[in-house]
Each structure stands twice: as structure tokens, then as C-alpha cells.
């Protein structure tokens, strides 16, 4: 009865979709009179050319792993969380408060506390949309969009009125204390005699992100909660029959999702900026949507997709520097990836299915 082998569904379709997205992106580059091959070379060089570039690529990758996992958790419960952006922003506030108001002696103590701060704030920002969806049927896509805007206004207000250093021109908080400084790859690898660029922002959060991906796997496929989340996502009526409480699942899945987004702040706020700045998330929450879609909501796929977007993001920055192609090109690629892997899935799937059915018939004959 199966129309296609599993590997085709899990690997072939996303691969073709991404190829199509890149092909179109190449056409865009050609249309603005640039050379796509040159552009790719510049991007690869800019993303992986030296340890500084690699450090930036992995720094962005860390952000995207967190937001990708965040979107994916919700997606397993068939909830489309567009609010990762806002949840990550609020997570930044949580991390900043933890780092600013406690004089931490050492990062190893500060980090767990900051993680809790970020996760709790991110989860809290996801809670209201989750509760409204579960209890009142308010569409979570719309409410999370609204909460992105409300969150951005809230952060702006708090920064301006409470966290801003008096007399300073820029809307940003004071710098965190030295005890809240997270070790960068430079510092982590030096004891092993490995020279990693000093300025690269990638830090210990990268390892936390990988741990989160492993935890994600166990949560979704090995625990009862994950089982219930997936069951609810597949069929709400069946979940009710099985004694699974829909309200509980929606709220918990969104809390986990928000917490994962909030956790991102240990990377961008605590690890890199070491202070809270306005619009610190820089669209990473939205990229999480592309990452989750492309990664088929599986942690391995998500890590790989996050790496790809880390490459695009860092390489795209270099592109604007060397080739005068605006870094918004990355946003175009991101859009095309979402379009092809998410919305135009059937365009790739239908002909493939026909192909496999024809192949099967031949085999039988």
C-alpha cells in the first residue's frame, strides 16, 4: 500500500526541495547581475574559511538549533508556533535579569541559573497563547504573531525605562559581570592546544544546544509525554479517547517550545553580547520555522538544517561585504526553503509518488 519507500519521504523529498530553493536563489543572484558560483565560493569561504568564520557560523547555528527545536516540539503537537521570535526575546530578558542582578562568582553556576531564567521567561511568553488555544480555541498562529509584537514593545519599554544605563545613548542594558562570561571556543580549546580565533562568538552554548537536540529525541520518541504529544498532534479525537488531556498537552508542548526558544538567549545575550540589546533575536525565531520544516521535525535534521542556515547567515554577511549583495539574500533563501519544503511539498511529492508507483509496477511485471 505504501506509495513510496521511507527514505524517499525522509531524505529525497527535502533534498529536492532544497535544491529547487537554491536553484531559484541562484537565479535571483543572476538576475541582479552577479555570478552565483562566485557568490557560493564567497559564502563558503566566509563561513568556513578560517576559525573566526567557523566560529560565527557555529554561533548562528546554535541559535537556530534552539529555535528549530522549539518550532518542532510544537509542531509534533500540530501547533504552529510562529512566536519563537518573541519567546526568544523574552528569554533574553530573563537571562539578562539573572546575569545583571546576581554577582555570579563563576560561569558554571551562572549558566544553569541563566538557563532557568531564559527558559522560564520564554515559556511564560508561550503560556498565554497556549492557554487561549487550549481553553478558548483562539488560533495559536495569530496569537503568537500578536505576542511577537507585544513582546517587542514590552522589551523596548523595559530597556528604555529600567535597564538602560543612565546617560547612555544606546538602548541597551549594562554589561554583565565577569562571572557571567561564558567560555568561548577559544578559551575551551586552548587547554587542548587547539588554536581557535579569539573573536569568534561561538561558546559553550553550542554544546548545550546539541544536548537539547539529544534531549528532544528522547522526549519525543521515548517518553510517555512525547508519545502523548505525538498522538495528540496526529488526532485530537483519538487522544481524547485514549484519556489524553488535550489542554494539558497543548500547554505543556507550548511551554517546552517557549522554553527552548528562551534558552537561545544563553547564546546571543549571555554568550555573545553580554548585555541585553534591542532586537537581540534578529529573526532567529523565524529561521527556526525554516529549520524545523527542513529538518522534518527530527533533531538530526534540525541540527543539519541549523548548520546550513548558520552557513547561509554567516556566508551571507560576507557576501554583502565582498560582493555587495545585501545580506537580505539570506532572507530570500530562507523564504524559498520554507516555501519549497513547507508549502510546495506536494509539487515535489506528487510526481515522485507517480514515479515510484510506476517503478513498482515494472518490478511486479
Amino acid at each position: 500500500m505504501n506509495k513510496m519507500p521511507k527514505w524517499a519521504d525522509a531524505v529525497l523529498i527535502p533534498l529536492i526541495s532544497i535544491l529547487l530553493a537554491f536553484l531559484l536563489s541562484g537565479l535571483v543572484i543572476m538576475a541582479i547581475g552577479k555570478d552565483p558560483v562566485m557568490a557560493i565560493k564567497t559564502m563558503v569561504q566566509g563561513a568556513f574559511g578560517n576559525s573566526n568564520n567557523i566560529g560565527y557560523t557555529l554561533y548562528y547555528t546554535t541559535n537556530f538549533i534552539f529555535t528549530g527545536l522549539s518550532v518542532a516540539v510544537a509542531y509534533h503537537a500540530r501547533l504552529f508556533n510562529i512566536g519563537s521570535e518573541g519567546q526568544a526575546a523574552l528569554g533574553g530578558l530573563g537571562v539578562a535579569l539573572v546575569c545583571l542582578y546576581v554577582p555570579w562568582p563563576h560561569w558554571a553556576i551562572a549558566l544553569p541559573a541563566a538557563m532557568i531564567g531564559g527558559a522560564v521567561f520564554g515559556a511564560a511568553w508561550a503560556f498565554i497563547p497556549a492557554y487561549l488555544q487550549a481553553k478558548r480555541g483562539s488560533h495559536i498562529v495569530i496569537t503568537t504573531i500578536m505576542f511577537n509584537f507585544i513582546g517587542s514593545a514590552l522589551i523596548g519599554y523595559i530597556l528604555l525605562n529600567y535597564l538602560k544605563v543612565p546617560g547612555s545613548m544606546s538602548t541597551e542594558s549594562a554589561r554583565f559581570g565577569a562571572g557571567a562570561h561564558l567560555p568561548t571556543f577559544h578559551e575551551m580549546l586552548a587547554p587542548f592546544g587547539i588554536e581557535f580565533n579569539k573573536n569568534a562568538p561561538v561558546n559553550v552554548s553550542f554544546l548545550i544546544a546539541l544536548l537539547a537536540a539529544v534531549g528532544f529525541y528522547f522526549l519525543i520518541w521515548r517518553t510517555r509525554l512525547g508519545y502523548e504529544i505525538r498522538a495528540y498532534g496526529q488526532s485530537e479525537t483519538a487522544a481524547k479517547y485514549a484519556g489524553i488531556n488535550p489542554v494539558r498537552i497543548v500547554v505543556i508542548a507550548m511551554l517546552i517550545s517557549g522554553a527552548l526558544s528562551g534558552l537561545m538567549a544563553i547564546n546571543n545575550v549571555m554568550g555573545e553580547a553580554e548585555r541585553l540589546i534591542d532586537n537581540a533575536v534578529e529573526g532567529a525565531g523565524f529561521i527556526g520555522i525554516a529549520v524545523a520544516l527542513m529538518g522534518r521535525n527530527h533533531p538530526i535534521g534540525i541540527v543539519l538544517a541549523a548548520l546550513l542556515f548558520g552557513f547561509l547567515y554567516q556566508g551571507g554577511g560576507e557576501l554583502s561585504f565582498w560582493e555587495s549583495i545585501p545580506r537580505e539574500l539570506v532572507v530570500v533563501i530562507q523564504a524559498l526553503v520554507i516555501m519549497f519544503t513547507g508549502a510546495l511539498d506536494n509539487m515535489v511529492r506528487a510526481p515522485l509518488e507517480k514515479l515510484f508507483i510506476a517503478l513498482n509496477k515494472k518490478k511486479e511485471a
Partner: protein
Amino acid sequence: MDYLTIIQILDSTVRLATPLLLTCLAGLFSERAGVVDIGLEGKLLAAAFLAGAAASVTGSIWIGLLAGVAGSLAFSMIHGLASITFKGDQLISGVALNFLAAGLTVVVGQSWFKLGGRTPSLPTDARFGEWNLPFSDALANVPFIGPLYHELISGHTALTYMALLAVPLSWWVLYRTRFGLRLRAVGENPSAVDTAGVSVVRLRFAALVIAGVLCGMAGTYLASLAAGFVKDMSAGRGYIALAALIFAKWRPWYALSATMLFGLLEAIGNRYQSITMGDFTIPVQFMQALPYILTVIILAGFVGKAIPPRAGGTPYVKER
């Protein structure tokens, strides 16, 4: 607050509400036909860019309008291709289109004008002129009615008056014509339309065409108002229009009230950095967030329930 201030705030309300109203009506046609459209923001942006670009090159905002509408239409058709033809996820398609517009406008803009993603500023004659209604100047000094007529009712651009006219027109089309009946039906139960021998695909595409044209007008308005395109100039207006649509319960007249309300909030927010009420100060950020907060409250169903068209968000697949 004196009378003239109130008139001025209301005048600015109408200005700010115009793009919201057009975008909201665009969303109304699309969603009434069962196609959820969170890509309004992207269409708005694409239209504003192309309108700004064309107007700056040709010196005519009307050619700009054509270009803006064409750009918005193109985005509408991509949305239709993904969500109607290939039965893809409407939400994801909308999200993708928003990013596509955000990215493409800057990439292409930089390539065309080398101004960091903006278009050259439009001179006054390449923008929409203000229409002075008859006797506007003559009546200007009549107490009470004079300012009301001169400032508030007269002196808007053609698009504002078109947007206001679009409200009764939309109502009439939806509730008094065959096309409207079918459009509403396809948003409620597409299989009823299909089995009655009417093409679901064609109806939904027709709705998206209307949405594209309206969004194109709204985007052009933005470009004309700001005298050119700047990066991300839609600034969330597509989402506010979406919020207004929910607020309006998917009805044309309510859409007028909802967008005027949100326009008013923006107008007040623009005029006063903060509002002091006794000991309490309302920060400007709160005013900015108010449309979103109100929408969440409406969505929560605490103030009247907003019931969307039943078939919204799901691609139509024939049952076996």
C-alpha cells in the same frame, strides 16, 4: 485637547487607517473564500517597493500603482499556486511570502538603485495629490463644520476615497451578487460549491486576485505617503490588518470600524509620546502594542466570539 486637535488626530487617523482598511478588505476576500492569508504583510511590502520604484523611474504614481498592484498580484498567485493548486499549508506559504518580500525588496532594490535597499525619494508630483472636495476652501472658516469638512473630510488622496468606497462595494459584492454567494460558500463548505458544478479553484483564485489588487493599492499608498520605499516599511501593518479582520469578524462594515480604531491608536501614539492620566502614564510602547493586545482579547472570546469561515486554512481535496 481642543476641537482642532481632535480634528487633526482624526484626520491623521483616516490617513493611517487607509492602508489598513485596504489590506483588511484584501484579507477579507481571501479568507471569506477559505484561503487564510498571513502573507498580507509581504504583499504590502512588495507592492510598496514596486510602486516606489516605478514611480521614481517614471515620475507617475499612477504607473507606480500599476506596478504595485502587479507585484502584489504576483505574490497572490504564488500563494494560490502553493495553497490552492498544490494544496500546501496556507500558513506556511504566507510566512514564506512575507520573508520573500522582506528579502527580495532589499536585494533587488540595492541592485537597481544602489541606495541600500531604498528607492529614490518621490517628488511631490510623483505622489498622490490631495483631493480638495468642492467648497473645501470656502467653508474652511465656518466655525465647527469648516475644520471638520476642510481638514477631515476633504484633502485626502484618491486612494483614501477609493478605500472608503470599497467598503460598501465589498458588502454589496459579498451579499448581493452571485459571485459573493459562491465566494462565501466556498469559504464555508467548498464541497457544496464543487458538487454544484462551480470550480472551487477558480473561485479561490478570483478571491486572491481581488486580495492582490487591494493589497497593491495599500502598498502603493504607503510608498506615496512616505515618498518612496524604505526597507521593511510595511512595519507590521499586514499583521495589524489581519488583527483588524478578526476584530471585524470578517465583515466589511466592521472592517471599517476596526481599521479606524487601529488607525486612531496609531495616530494618538504618533502625536503623544506618552499619555498621562492623573498619576498614571501610559507609555508609547503600550499604545503601539494595543492593537495586538486587543486582538488577543477578541480572539480569547471574552468580548464577542469571532468565528472564522469554516473551511479557512484547509486546502480543498475531493472526498472519495
